[in-house]
């Protein structure tokens, strides 16, 4: 998978909103271009892109995330599609849990890299990741039978 599609997927998971995700990708691409001009010889690691995008999102106000109209559209689509249902449940997660999930599962960062980007101890990152998964598993009916 190319870098730009993956970055865009991370943006979707982080922002939970197409327009916001597109803006984040645009900002990140601009920053990457500026960096490449300043340091043409330096490689541009994937984790740099994900870090910039995540910080950009954290630095923006999120008041316009997922308005009622778009939430309604997601719900309509969710009835037809498992993937849309997963996306909807990910969007519903608390921000800190969703970020951990987005960076590790979608962005492909290691636990160490993700903890570094989110400025968290490793144990806090894995805790959030585990909580996010437990919530998703319950919502998507993957939960272990009561035992």
């Amino acid at each position: 998978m190319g870098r730009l599609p993956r970055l865009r997927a991370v943006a979707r998971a982080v922002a939970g909103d197409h327009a916001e995700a597109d803006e984040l990708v645009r900002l990140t691409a601009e920053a990457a271009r500026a960096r490449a001009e300043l340091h043409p010889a330096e490689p541009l690691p994937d984790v740099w892109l994900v870090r910039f995008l995540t910080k950009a999102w954290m630095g923006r106000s999120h008041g316009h995330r997922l308005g009622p109209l778009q939430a309604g559209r997601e719900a309509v689509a969710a009835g037809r599609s498992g993937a849309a249902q997963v996306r909807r449940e990910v969007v519903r997660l608390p921000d800190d849990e969703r970020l951990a999930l987005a960076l590790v599962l979608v962005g492909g960062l290691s636990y160490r890299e993700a903890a570094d980007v989110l400025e968290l101890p490793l144990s806090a990152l894995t805790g959030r990741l585990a909580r996010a998964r437990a919530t998703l598993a319950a919502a998507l009916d993957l939960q272990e039978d009561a035992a």
Partner: protein
Amino acid sequence: MSGLKDQALMAYVDGELDEVQRQGLEASISGDPRLAAEVERQRALRARVQDAFLGVDVSQAELSALDEPPLVLGHPPVSARLRRRARTFRPVHWAAMAACLAVGAGIGLAAAYGPALLDPPAMELTPDGLVARGALAEALAGATAEEVRVGDVAPGADGAACRTFVLPDPNLSGLACREGSGWAVRSVGAGGV
């Protein structure tokens, strides 16, 4: 899921265990069907989340059709069905293609801008993805064009020469990269920079 055992299973599924830890856990799993089942559940969940964001399927295309035009068309895997269709179309069929896409795979960009790109076509959807044509291709290749603005050449992720572009009408901006003898449009969206 919050216990140490669960976090170890999660780390195992995410490929975060070192060799010794991994072998130890695998030994436990092989003797414990419940543990093995939990690992399978974790794997399935991981795969579903990744598919939901990284995979392109019809449902995502449907979702895109409902929303704003999606920004990236070049690299995401285009479904085989869409590829077969695309091969039979020519630039002059943009409007018809846009209608097919809106129904069949719903690429919002084509649905929203297909007709506007008719004359002259600035991009063409080929089996290899979206490719620059006409004035856009010429401007990317270095020709001065009043109607197209292009940015400096910068290396893309795979080392290809890439440049940004802005089209005035319809107002689109994006990124195109050199591929073979042409320019592959790797991202495009509404609005200028």
